[in-house]
């Protein structure tokens, strides 16, 4: 099957393929806010999450050779009248899905299983390719969940879902702001695995509290799954033992950002797209760069070839950087409608477009 790049934007969903050069092959949902897409490698199904604003969040699915069809949207159960649910700030949490913020297939041995994380921070699972969704009550009922806080969004949310390649029943979640979570029994029980993270913006006695860490994005090394990387509000964190974290300090030009990608076979190699922390959020000095480490964070290359180095105010959101199975090809899209691609791990970048709508997410098939 021809490799494609799925680009979710504020005004539609674009499918790119390589025909000599990478170019847009299809534009779907034009005018609609497509916040995230997923390709299921088990069967070729595609999923697109739409946020219609007035009309709410919807999910659509496309089977190979078929047309897009609306399917069930994850939904909270009816909230009992006597329940008042609040987040860590004490704000009342509405039991309504405001955004699909993570969408991942289950393992290769779990045909039909999908995971979905939302804002507010709930996890849903489907056992039937998205025909229906079940609320993962075990996580919602965990006492620590009530301490989760909103970060950039009004309410906390689950943005990262990593299914362990060694055991599909082991799943990790990245939560903003709620740390990193792990289940080893496909969602029956949950444990927090965010020790070592640090949130400098909190009062000193709370900076190391694992329950309220603002992980911006979590990725897991496919080849060495105990190795994980997190782009955190506070900087970059690396995990070597599946549960504790080490902060990577002094990363040029900045360790603030949203996106992170890890090489499929080299766990020490990872990419980030930095910006000025944290209330400004644009590239340092207006120069768009990607940073790459090949030695587990001891040193970083600042990659600029092919990227705008003057008056670039592109922000790259957490789902807007991806790497393919080759480990050489990466792509990222920005809030100002730029889309760049490299075929050599970032040594050279090529602009695919600078006129797209604001990009929420990119995914290689």
């Amino acid at each position, binding site marked *: 099957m021809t490799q494609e790049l799925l680009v979710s934007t504020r005004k539609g969903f674009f499918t790119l393929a390589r025909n000599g050069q990478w170019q847009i092959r299809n534009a779907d949902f034009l005018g609609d806010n497509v916040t995230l897409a997923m390709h299921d490698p088990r069967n070729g199904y595609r999923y697109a999450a739409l946020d219609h604003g007035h*009309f709410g969040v*919807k999910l659509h699915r496309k089977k190979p050779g078929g047309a897009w069809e609306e399917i069930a949207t994850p*939904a*909270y159960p009816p909230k009992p009248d006597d329940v008042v649910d609040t987040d860590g700030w004490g704000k009342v949490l509405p039991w309504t899905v405001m955004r699909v913020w993570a969408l991942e297939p289950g393992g290769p041995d779990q045909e039909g299983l999908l995971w979905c994380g939302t804002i507010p921070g709930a996890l849903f699972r489907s056992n039937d390719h998205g025909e229906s969704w079940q609320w993962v009550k075990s996580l919602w009922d965990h006492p620590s969940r009530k301490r989760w806080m909103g970060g950039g969004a009004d309410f906390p949310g689950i943005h990262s879902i990593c299914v362990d390649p060694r055991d599909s029943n082991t799943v990790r979640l990245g939560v903003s702001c709620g740390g990193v979570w792990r289940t080893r029994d496909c969602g029956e029980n949950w444990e927090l695995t965010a020790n070592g993270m640090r949130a400098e913006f909190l009062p000193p006695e709370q900076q190391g509290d694992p329950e309220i860490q603002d992980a911006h994005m979590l990725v897991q090394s496919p080849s060495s799954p105990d190795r994980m990387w997190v782009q955190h509000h506070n900087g970059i964190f690396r995990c070597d033992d599946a549960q504790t974290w080490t902060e990577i300090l002094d990363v040029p030009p900045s360790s603030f950002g949203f996106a992170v990608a890890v090489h499929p076979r080299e766990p020490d190699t990872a990419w980030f797209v930095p910006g000025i922390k944290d209330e400004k959020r644009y590239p340092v000095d207006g120069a768009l760069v990607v940073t790459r480490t090949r030695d587990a964070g001891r040193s970083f290359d600042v990659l600029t070839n092919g990227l705008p180095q003057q008056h670039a105010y592109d922000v790259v959101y957490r789902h807007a950087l991806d790497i393919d199975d080759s480990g050489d090809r990466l792509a990222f899209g920005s809030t100002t409608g730029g889309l760049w691609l490299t075929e050599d791990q970032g040594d050279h970048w090529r602009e695919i477009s600078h006129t797209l709508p604001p990009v929420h997410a990119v995914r290689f098939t």
Partner: protein
Amino acid sequence: MAEVHFTANLQRHVPCPQMQADGGTVREVLDSVFAENELLRGYVLDEQGALRKHMGIIVDGVVLRDRERLSDPAGPDSRIYVMQALSGG
């Protein structure tokens, strides 16, 4: 039966022609509509059954007051307009 109209912007996403439906409250009328058009429910109401935040309903010229339970009365001659608050870019 009450007459129910939907904003034209909704037609782009889900078919929702003008309909006639029975009910003593706006909730009952809309439930009758949704019984024949289940997909439409999620575009107008959230999963708790409340009117979506940026939607509005006008019943016989009066803006819906009970956005949670939709208990405002409706009658056989009512005209109900399901609208959106246009915003954004």
